[in-house]
């Protein structure tokens, strides 16, 4: 049994609360197996007092959604001088905002699908109908509508024709005040997890995602049996090597540390496109990051313990 005390934050008030709770329990299971003393806690009005009073050795946040991923929690922990697993506030802020992340990644000569991100107010002022018509013409159908911030594919939709466009916008704005409309790339969906155990970031084996329904939505992500995951992905070594390079480059260019998951798509010509980066990847039983860890022949307890120890040192 290790002397380490790890506080796992899970739950919170977010659209992804359910996923966060599951992630938190899985992380706790693995760390407990590694001999670490864990406590799972909700972020609530008593959290700050609890942190200051107990000063855990390390905090591991599995909070999905704003408080956990927009950098604010990381900022608080940094200020309090409490070690935590994962990226600092600056990196989290950049990755959380998908349009911002795309701009920064594109500066590294990494391709990302053409897109536009607009707040609700712009549609109101500029006449939504004409904006959507223009965007549809310029980006072409199908296209992808997604909340500019958020995860688990909530509020995301593939729009194949103009008449479905407005509904997709309304659905996405229910999750976030800013919505991104992105050109749809036909190809192989990949999730490349990046981990840094002290020797610099490395890409774990890419996970290829093949949902039965054709779309990797909420149900396909979290219902066992609805999606086939291939690890490593069934692509040429050359493409996989490039995907790994890109994932690490994204991780570094956004200033991420310790762990992240980079979502990519490989089109029919073998071109690799960046979609988004996640600073708090899901850790549920069907999530992509743990799958990638296991594909390296490592174990989750050992890997998570290494992340915790590294966080404690830094």
């Amino acid at each position, binding site marked *: 049994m290790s002397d380490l005390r790890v506080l796992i934050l899970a739950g919170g*008030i977010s*659209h992804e609360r359910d996923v966060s709770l599951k992630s938190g329990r899985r992380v706790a299971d693995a760390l407990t197996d590694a001999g670490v003393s864990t406590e799972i806690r909700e972020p609530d009005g008593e959290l700050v007092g609890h942190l200051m009073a107990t000063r855990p050795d390390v905090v591991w946040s599995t909070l999905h959604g704003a408080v956990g991923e927009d950098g604010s929690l990381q900022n608080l922990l940094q200020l309090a001088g409490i070690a935590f697993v994962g990226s600092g506030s600056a990196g989290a802020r950049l990755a959380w905002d998908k349009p911002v992340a795309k701009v920064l990644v594109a500066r590294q000569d990494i391709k990302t699908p053409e897109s536009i991100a607009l707040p609700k107010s712009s549609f109101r002022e500029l006449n939504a109908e004409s904006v959507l018509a223009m965007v549809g013409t310029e980006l072409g159908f199908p296209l992808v509508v997604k909340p500019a911030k958020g995860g688990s594919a909530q509020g995301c939709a593939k729009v194949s024709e103009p008449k479905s466009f*407005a509904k997709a916008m309304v659905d996405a704005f229910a999750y976030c005040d800013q919505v991104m409309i992105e050109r749809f790339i036909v190809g192989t969906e990949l999730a490349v997890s990046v981990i840094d155990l002290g020797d610099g970031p490395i890409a774990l084996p890419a996970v290829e995602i093949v949902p039965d329904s054709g779309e990797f939505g909420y149900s396909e992500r*979290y219902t066992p049996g609805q*999606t086939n995951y291939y690890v490593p992905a069934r692509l040429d070594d050359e493409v996989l090597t490039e995907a790994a390079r890109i994932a690490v480059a994204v991780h570094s260019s956004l200033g991420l540390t310790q762990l992240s998951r980079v979502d990519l798509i490989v089109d029919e010509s073998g071109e690799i496109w960046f979609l988004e980066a996640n600073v708090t990847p899901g850790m549920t039983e069907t999530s992509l990051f743990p799958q990638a860890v296991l594909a390296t022949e490592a174990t989750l307890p050992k890997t998570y313990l290494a992340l915790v120890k590294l966080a404690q040192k830094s």
Partner: protein
Amino acid sequence: MTKTRADGVTNFDAWKHSYAARAENLSVSEVRALFAVVSRPEVVSLAGGMPDVAALDTELIEKAFASLMSNRKDLALQYGGGQGDLRLREQIQEIMALEGIHSSVEDITITTGSQHGLELVSDLFLDKGDVVLVEAPSYVGAVGIFRHKEAHIAHVYTDEHGISPQALAETADRLTAEGKRIKLLYLVPNFANPSGVTLTADRRLEVLEICKQRGILIVEDNPYGQLYFGEKPPNAMRSLDEQNVVYLGSFSKILSPGLRVGYVLAPPAIREKLVLANESAILSPASFAQMLVSEYLSIADWQKQIGTFRDLYQTKRDAALQAVEQFLPKVHTTRPDGGFFLWLTLPEGLNSKEMLPLAVTELVAYTPGTAFFGDGRGADNIRICFSHPTADNVRVGIERLSRVLNQQIDLLETFGKRD
């Protein structure tokens, strides 16, 4: 976490090929996941149909517990019979008498909540494709059971006086003419879940006659009958017809849903099969919970407790109606005389399911109307449960709901007519 298989592919469900066909639709739902926030104290939940158990006299329950452990623990901690505890069944006779029902103790079967009773009845009667007639809207838990039995759910027009006899006859005759086999009419005649409406006495007689003529068994679900705010509702349909009605009762609303004790009153032939089905499914209903209820009924003035609930829920109902009037002036609501629920109809174009993420952000939860239909209807409806939050929180929740509606109206005005 399952290790990825040697061939490099996994779907995390090694038994995918093995499930029964009816398990096909059991999948994770984004809408259901959004409800996870209701456990946070900041969120006002108008969603779950829960009683306000804080209004129970817990000293009496503790006393019942102590008495049970002193006097009957050998029986309470042991398996029981498949039909349920005899003393409790005798007490249930007394409770059902309040609804005008006179029955033999032999015809009562105790179940693990009345939901379990409905599951057993459905299992006895429904083959794939059989028709169940239900109100429009109908109880979500019943819709779920009928779906799982792969039954065809046919909603019958329902207004503020309950299910329409004329529509019932027309629907039944149309479906029969189409070659469909109608097995059951399921309804909640008193303060229905979710609509809050009560079937009038005249209509009860008409419905009984229509079903009798057509050989349709009525399943009368009556969890809210004693929770009236003014006039007592008409007697149970079962009080008028012993042969063609299966009656479901529950302690979940007049005592505690945590005990999971309900009951079914059925004609002898059906009851015989129910007991066997009960034994086959669970061996026996929980002895401890049954005997605790029985002890409680013996020592407590349970009718007084029901009176406390009535007064409390009436106050909350009034708060809910006032708040709807003040904050949701364009929304139509039913005005129930008992029970737990208001059924709201939203202005045209609003979709209660699509608004749920906004509700999470505004810290309020409700149940979208689509949950209460088996055919996709209900997008312009919301069920509000006023029984569980405090009256103040009912008001706060409805005020928050008005903000959700305003945001959605703003989006619809911005994006105009949608697909």
